């Protein structure tokens, strides 16, 4: 069993991953940092054990010292444990923050997921994670259909533009495919990811155009870096064709991570002249520079902010969203803990897209739900699509009685034109 899994894992274990496995002394500092383990007390969820399971499986394959190393043969029990260890993880990297050696279990999980996907025995279908792959494939297919669809797409955007003009500003525009624009804004599916950004760009007098594609990159969630690069290539090619100066990604954690941490490595010189940024810091800079103005105290409802892992812990954007919230809200309450120590919502790592994971997500989000309840806030604001969906589900599941909003929703609603 797991023949292909072991082949791929062995092939993709690079020097850092080998070090991680060798260095980990299983001190346990990561145990209570993991929201999955805290909720389930399932040993397969302990970050150190996630690594140990893979290490044992690899040793079980090739070493005569198996009896000494307590290595496991790849039997059914081990397969089930490895599946849990790899799939029931959001890659939030809170464990790495607490690890005295900074060991990055999420990196191994990424490799493990890719290997499970390629095992060829339908393991991903067993757990429902084939859905992530399905969405990732559709993202790549979009490149093949977009030319035929462009005209229709632009017509639909015009309909949306008309609606926003009627409710917000008659001269607002949502440009698409505009050559020479400074900013290429890559949205998400759903007008909630387009309308607030359009209002803010309009208020700031930005020279922008909207992408024909969306920012999400589900292949990244399953560690399939070749496909992740293929999907990202569509955005790069569009940016180069239009001659933009910057690519701006929306309120989407994993997509922002690909843009800020992987594009340079994937595309090197090709991307060198194009700035890459997330919408939150860009809007914060508009506010700081006086390019946009908002009504201070426009919101008097108690608000709290959930740091998305990929924007905060993995991206370093802690203060920008807070500066935007404080500019419009009179009662901001921090979740405890917050910033780099923030507890993951339980919906990252692509798990939102896997219907079979709903119960596990709700269990893993128990602590987050309690933290929200303790703030007494009525609005929970965040800057990641997956977090918004998960927080919405937690709200319903735990009866929190809150509303979930995006940071840019708040800003767009408080704009002074």
């Amino acid at each position, binding site marked *: 069993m797991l023949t292909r899994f072991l082949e791929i894992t062995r092939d993709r274990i690079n020097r850092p991953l080998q070090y991680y496995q060798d260095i980990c002394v299983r001190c346990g500092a990561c145990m209570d940092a993991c929201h999955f383990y805290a909720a389930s007390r399932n040993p397969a969820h302990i970050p150190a054990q996630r690594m140990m399971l893979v290490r044992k499986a690899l040793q079980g394959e090739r070493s005569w010292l198996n009896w000494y190393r307590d290595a496991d043969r790849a039997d059914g029990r081990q397969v089930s444990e490895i599946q849990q260890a790899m799939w029931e993880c959001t890659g939030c990297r809170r464990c790495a923050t607490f690890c005295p050696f900074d060991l990055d279990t999420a990196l191994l999980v990424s490799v493990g997921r890719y290997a499970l996907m390629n095992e060829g025995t339908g393991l991903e279908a067993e757990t429902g994670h084939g*859905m992530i792959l*399905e*969405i990732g*494939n*559709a*993202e*790549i*297919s*979009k490149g*093949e*259909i*977009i030319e035929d*669809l462009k005209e*229709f*797409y632009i017509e*639909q*955007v015009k*309909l*949306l533009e008309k*609606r926003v003009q009627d409710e917000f500003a008659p001269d607002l525009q949502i440009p698409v495919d505009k050559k020479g624009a400074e900013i290429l804004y890559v*949205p*998400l*599916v*759903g*007008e*909630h*990811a*387009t309308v607030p950004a359009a209002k803010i760009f309009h208020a700031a007098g930005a020279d922008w155009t909207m992408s*024909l*594609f*969306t920012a*999400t990159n*589900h292949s990244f969630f399953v560690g399939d870096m070749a496909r992740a690069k293929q999907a990202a290539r569509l955005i790069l090619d569009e940016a180069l064709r239009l001659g933009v100066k910057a690519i701006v990604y929306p309120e*989407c954690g994993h997509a922002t991570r690909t843009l800020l941490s992987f594009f340079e490595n994937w595309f090197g010189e090709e991307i060198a002249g194009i700035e890459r940024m997330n919408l939150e810091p860009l809007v914060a800079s508009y506010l700081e520079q006086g390019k946009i103005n908002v009504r201070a105290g426009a919101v008097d409802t108690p608000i709290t902010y959930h740091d998305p892992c990929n924007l905060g812990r993995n991206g370093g954007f802690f203060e920008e969203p807070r500066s935007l919230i404080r500019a419009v809200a009179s009662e901001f309450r921090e979740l405890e803990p917050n910033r780099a120590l923030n507890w993951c919502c339980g919906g990252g790592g692509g798990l*939102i*897209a896997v*219907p079979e994971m709903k119960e596990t997500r709700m269990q893993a989000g128990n602590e987050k739900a309690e933290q929200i309840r303790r703030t007494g806030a009525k609005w929970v604001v965040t800057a990641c*699509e997956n977090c*918004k*969906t998960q927080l*919405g589900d937690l709200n319903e599941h735990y009866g929190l009685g809150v509303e979930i909003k995006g940071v840019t929703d708040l800003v767009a609603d408080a704009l002074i034109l």
Partner: protein
Amino acid sequence: MAEYTVESTLDARGLNCPMPVVRTSQEIKKMSVGGVLELLATDPGSVADMIAWCKSTGNELLDRKTEDGVFRFYIRRVN
């Protein structure tokens, strides 16, 4: 527009990403092969996403139309 009978309708309006695709995929798997799914959406991004999904999964996009700002897709389950 070709003649066909809608087996199931899915309202994907207002859903967060990637739920329009997830729900469509789930819904179509419940349907009989050859059955037609009607999908409602209001944002332009769904247009490209749904057509791309049909292409990559081998399902057939029969028709699309716009009525009062609502996009309607008709997808036939192929396999």
